[in-house]
C-alpha cells in the first residue's frame, strides 16, 4: 500500500537556543546542597503569598541559602525578608523584561514563578 506524505504544523522555535534554555540548565549550579532561590512575582493575588511560603519552607529545610524576589516589570530587586516589591501595573499576562530575566539568571540558581492565580 502506498504511503502519503503528510506535512505537520509542529512547533518550530524561532530561537532554538532560547527554547532549549527552557528545558536545560547548568547542573553545576545545583551541585551544592543549597541554592540561591529566586521568586518572580507574576502579580496575581495568590502568587506572591504562595511563593513566599514556598521560600520559607525551602529556607527552613536548609535548601535555599538566599532568596531574591522580583515582580515581572519591576526594575528593582528586593529581598523577601522585608523590602517592598514594586508594582507598576498589573502585568500578569505580559512577559518579564529580558533584562530582568538576565539578572535573575545571574543572581539565582533556582527560580520559581506563577502561572495565573
Amino acid at each position: 500500500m502506498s504511503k502519503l506524505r503528510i506535512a505537520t504544523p509542529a512547533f518550530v522555535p524561532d530561537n532554538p537556543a532560547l527554547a532549549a534554555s527552557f528545558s536545560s540548565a547548568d547542573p553545576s549550579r545545583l551541585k551544592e546542597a543549597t541554592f540561591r532561590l529566586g521568586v518572580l512575582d507574576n502579580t496575581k493575588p495568590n502568587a506572591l503569598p504562595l511563593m513566599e511560603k514556598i521560600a520559607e519552607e525551602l529556607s527552613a529545610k536548609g535548601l535555599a541559602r538566599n532568596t531574591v524576589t522580583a515582580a515581572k516589570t519591576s526594575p528593582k530587586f528586593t529581598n523577601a525578608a522585608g523590602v517592598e516589591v514594586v508594582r507598576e501595573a498589573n502585568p500578569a499576562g505580559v512577559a518579564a523584561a529580558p533584562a530582568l530575566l538576565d539578572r535573575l539568571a545571574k543572581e539565582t540558581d533556582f527560580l520559581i514563578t506563577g502561572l495565573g492565580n
Partner: protein
Amino acid sequence: MTDEIGHAHPDELADIAKQVVAEQIPAILDSYRRNPAGGAEIEPAQPEEIAIEADADIAVKLSDIFVDRDWSDGMPIVPPTVERVDAMLKAFGLKGDELLAVLPPRGGRATAKKVAVCAVMAGCDAVHFPIVAAAVHAIAQRNFQLYMVQTTAHPLYPFILVNGPIGKKAGLSNGHDLTPRGWKANLVIARALRLVCISTAGIKALQASHTHGYVGYHDSCIRENEEDSPWEAFHVEKGYPKEANVVTAFPAEPPHVIDDRGSTTPQSLLSTFAMTVASPGNRSIWANSEQVFLVCPEHARYLASQNFSKGDIKEFLYHVARVPLHQFPKHNLASLAKWRQKIFSNVSEHVTLPVVRSMEDFEVVVHGGVGPHSMWLAGCPVSRGVTVDVDKLIHDVSRKR
C-alpha cells in the same frame, strides 16, 4: 475556604507550599542532578513531515495521531498532504518558508507553510488562505498582546473581522444564517487560526490557562455586513479604501446579545447598549479595554435614520456607559479600592466609573441579518485590535523571501 474571591486562605497556601516543597521541588532537583548532560530532557525536535498508509481509515487515524502529538484541536482534520499544502502556497506564489509571525508564548515560527498546513487541516480552500495568513500576522503584532491572550485566565480569543471584497469572495457570511446551521468559510478560517495558535505556537493540550477555555472560537470569524450598513465600513473608518481587503483581529471575550425591540428614540436604544456594558462584571471598568459592538442592520438603520453617525454613537456611549460606585457590590468595591487605592479610596458613592477611558475604545461594526439583536464583545486590558491589509501582506512576504 477563602474569605475573598480570588484570594486563597493563608492556611490553604501553606498546605500547597508544604506539598510543593515535599514532592515537586525534590523531583525537579533530582532530575537536574541525575542528568550529567545538564537539566531535564530537552524537547526533541518534532517532524516536519510524516508518512502514513493511504488506506480507507486514513482520516480517522491521522486525526488521532495529530491529537496525540498536540498538533490538533480534537476535531477530525483534512489530511494536510504535501501536495495539498504546496498547492495552497503555489496559488499565492509562496514557497512556504516566508515568515508571517513569531507566536508567543514559546516563540513558534508561523511560516507560510505552517499556516497553510493548519488551513488545510481546518478544511480551508485556497481562497481562505490570505485571510488566515493576515489574521496570524495581525495577532502577532505588539498591540494585540497575544502573549497575554494565550496565557491569561481571562477567557479571550482572537475575533476576526473581514472587510472588503475578499470577504464575499471567500464565501464568508455577514451574519444572517451564520448560526445554527454554520457557514463553511467562517468556521474553517476561525479553526485554522485556532490551530495555528495551539500547534504552531507550541501550546500543549494541558497548558490552556483560560478559566472557560475558548468557548465559541469556531464562530469567531465574520465579515462586516457592508451591504446593509448605513455608515462607512469599519476599514474605511480606519483609513483604508473601500476596495481594500482588510482583516482586523480583536482580542475578545465571547459575545453577548443586546436585545432592544421597543425603543422609540436613538438615545433610548443606545442607553440599552450602554446599560448592557456598564456593569461591575465588565473587566474594562477595572482595566480599560476595547468594546466592540456588532450592530444589527435593524438597529443600524434606525440610528442612521435619526442622523446618528458612528462618532455620535461612540460619544453617547462614552458619556452614558458608566457605573456608579454605589452599584458595585460592597466587598467588590472594597477590592477595587484596594487595588487602585489612590483613585478609588475615600470618594463619594455617587462617582461614576466609565466603561472605557476614551470614546475611541468603542468600535462599531454592522453585522447580522433580520431581527433586533445586536451583540457586544468586551476586549482585553493592555491589548488592542490590529488591522492588516491582506494583499499588501501577501505581496510583502513573497518579496522578502
